[in-house]
């Protein structure tokens, strides 16, 4: 009858050791390409052409990459004009001017309200993983709350469709200060392939100020966790050689 208990007790700790150790389990992250130098400008052009979402741009023999458009399709990971590939997940960055990390009493614990502003649900699925034993966000002091009145952080996924625009704004307004916003996924950062269009604003920052961006389509759970850690000042943001080219598509 207590088999399940003994089995559980015998299996020891399964939770990721991510902060502070690096988790290199298979499948923990899809990885993403980084800017690559090719022998000739022709090869760089070839690399750019193979990307379905136009995340790669070539100038001279350099193939640069806009991470907020990459959907990890891996078309550029092999073949003639293969990009360099990086299998980490520390992708979150502070979003430029006006972005701030949490202040003193919010370093150790945060309550998070999640808003799905019209996402394809991929990001939501990844966020859901955070509450499961493997990722166990609670041990780091992060909790999901159902009401914005109790929330410190607003986590937004999706390209802000016009139906969700007002709801997003109202949710943000309903939160008591001090408050922070985490834009999760490429859609929320740049709109990616969906926006700007007739039905979506495209970026969260066009509606409410964003503090931390987590690129990825979808970002793996550890990347989202990294975003939260960056927000609380407990982790470094992604190294600059990847971030320089995160660009918001103008509306």
């Amino acid at each position, binding site marked *: 009858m207590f088999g399940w208990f003994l089995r559980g007790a015998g299996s020891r700790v399964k939770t990721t050791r991510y902060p502070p150790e690096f988790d290199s389990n298979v499948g923990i992250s899809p990885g993403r390409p980084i800017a690559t130098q090719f022998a000739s400008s022709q090869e760089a052009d070839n690399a750019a052409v193979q990307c379905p979402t136009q995340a790669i741009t070539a100038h001279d023999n350099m193939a640069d990459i806009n991470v907020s458009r990459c959907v990890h399709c891996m078309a550029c990971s092999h073949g003639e004009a293969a990009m360099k590939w990086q299998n980490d997940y520390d992708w979150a960055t502070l979003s430029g001017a006006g972005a701030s990390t949490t202040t003193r009493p919010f370093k150790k614990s945060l309550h998070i309200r999640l808003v799905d502003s019209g996402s394809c649900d991929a990001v939501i699925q990844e966020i859901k993983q955070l509450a499961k034993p493997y990722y166990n966000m609670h041990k780091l002091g992060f909790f999901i709350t159902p009401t914005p009145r109790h929330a410190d952080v607003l986590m937004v996924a999706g390209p802000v469709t016009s139906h969700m625009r007002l709801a997003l704004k*109202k949710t943000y307004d309903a939160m008591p200060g001090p408050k922070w916003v985490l834009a999760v996924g490429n859609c929320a950062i740049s709109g990616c392939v969906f926006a700007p269009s007739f039905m979506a604003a495209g970026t969260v920052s066009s509606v409410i100020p964003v503090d931390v961006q987590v690129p990825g389509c979808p970002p793996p759970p550890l990347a989202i966790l990294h975003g939260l850690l960056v927000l609380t000042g407990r982790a470094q943001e992604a190294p600059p050689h990847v971030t320089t080219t995160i660009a918001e598509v103008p509306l």
Partner: protein
Amino acid sequence: MNIAEFFFLLVLLLSVAGAVISALAPAQWTGRILAICGTSAATALLIAAAIILAGHESIRVDLWRLPVRGMLRLRVDSVSAFFMLALGISFLPAYWFSDGYMRRYLAHYDPRSFNIFFHLLLAACALVLAAGDVISFLLAWRIMSGLATFPITLEHRQDENRRASYLFLAMNEAGIIISTVGLLWMVALAGGHTGFNALHGSLRHISPAARWAIFLIVFFGFSVKAGLIPLSSWLPQAHPVAPANMSAIMSGCLLNFGIYGIVRFDAIILPPISAGPGLVVLVVGALSALIGILYATIDNDMKKMLAHSSIENLGIIAANVGMGMVFTAYHLPVLAAIAYVVAMYHMINHSAYKTLLFIAAGAIDQQTGTRDMNQLGGLLKRMPMLAALFLVGALAIAALPPLNGFVSEWLTLQTILRSEEFTSHFSRVVFALCGAGLALTAALAVTCFVKAFAMSFLGPAHSEKASRALEPAKSARISMAILALACILLGIGPTWVIPTINRAMKPLAANLAANALVPPFFSHPHGNKDFSPGFMHDFAHIGAGIGRNIIPARGLVVLHQGGKSNPVVYAMSTFYMVGVLALIIFTTWLFVRWGTRRRTITISEPWAGGLRRLAPDMTYSATGFSNPVRVIFRSIFGPAIREDSSTAVAGHFRTAISKQRDDGYIVDRLFLRPLTATVNYAAKLLAKIHKPGMVNAYAAWVLAVLLVILVINRLL
């Protein structure tokens, strides 16, 4: 003629004068006349009652001698005077309230006839209490009961109103007939004496069986008037349809007459010698309390809710009377005295807060045009004064300290715990079960009135009219303020009230309750035979004697001593509680202010899940609030879902099915409907005798009945 008699005569004269003036004056004046004549009559009644209660005088008038059954007498002793006090407390504000309230009927009805009956009702009520013998009591009761029927039907053009007043009339008539039988039987057993005092003396030695029978007949006869289960189904029908001032009177004082009858005849004239009758009253009371509050909690019609809550309160009063009867039967005079005093305390409390709440419900109805809590909401901002007064009433009826309901309910529960004094296990078990029922009642009462206040006064307005409502007329606010003041005073001054009630209830309580509950040890800190010096010292030490030199009472603490096996003293002081509460609230406020002095306050709209617009219908409704109670006690409510597909097309393809939920009243379901079905069945059987046209068969039946009567007469 002494002063009390003078004021009593004044009451009768003013009432009759009011009726005459109402008949002659134009319809627009009705409210004013009620406010002037009625209020002065009620004031005169209060003065008369106060004079008698102060013990200076009493009313003893012999009217005239009847040819068969002796003298018609008016005798007002202290018990009657106390009921008169409750009468005045309820009538005075109700009359005053009429000034602004009657205007709403002028457009559609002529309220003059209402006025005539409403004026005469006070005189009739006073006469019932003043009656000193069975015959005049029954006469006055008849008149009072008949007069009370007419004001209910002011809006006589609506079917519902006529039906309700017929039900009221029919059930009260039945009650009168039953109690008349009981009372006349008493007179017969007493050898023809009709005076109350003479009855008491000459009924001492009747057989236990006759005692039981008379008790049952009288109790159930009067329990119609008191609205106790299972004879309470007229209450939730008649209260909502009556004008608010009449419903206030019905709840605040007409129901008390049932208790008066029970106390007068079952406790004073024929005191119980066995525990049985008391237990019956206790169980009926506790059941009424529980069923009343359950239905009150789920009802969304404000007046209906208050009517059900009246059943609850009358149940608590009856339970106390029952406890008093049991304690008397077990020769525990101190506890009996406490129980009777608590019953009277709760009765006067109920008169005060229920009148207040009915007036408030009437005022809300007048200003918004609805009594449905699902249609109200947000009235706090529109009528803050009424909201504050309603809140006082709601807190009082929910028995929250330091208001008056708390004192009497606390004492009720403390008294019921004293069943450990009994030797009979059966009585103990009954007391324990009833105690549990009453405790549940007290808890549900809080739910009920949280709902009533929250759904009517807080949140968004649920209807157009509610969002535009204005504060009611000044007369309504003043009359409610008087009652709110009464609630507060009765709440913080139990140490004044208990000795007064004890004096009034002298025939039942001697001076025992006051000595037990409010012992004179604060006024005589040394040398008190009931308490050891050590105990008194300890008590004085924790501050129980503060202010004893300046406040003219026996101290400010109500004590309830445990028995021998449980020698604990429970103490309670609402007076101190007020001080402590004020202190706590003030310091909390101070701390909060200090802690948040640097905060900026932003006001944003209510969180509604990011909806474009929050429609009032989407917010929490009264039905939703009480639904947990509805679900938990489903077996009591016995809901029936009725399906109506009468709009179906061609019999086969249904286009619309309406489902309706019918919460049948449990008393109707289990008692009244089976009863009427049985009577109908019996009538149908009898109808078979009436074979049309057989004259000789009729003659044979008449002969048979005559024979039977003769035989019975011979045998007796």
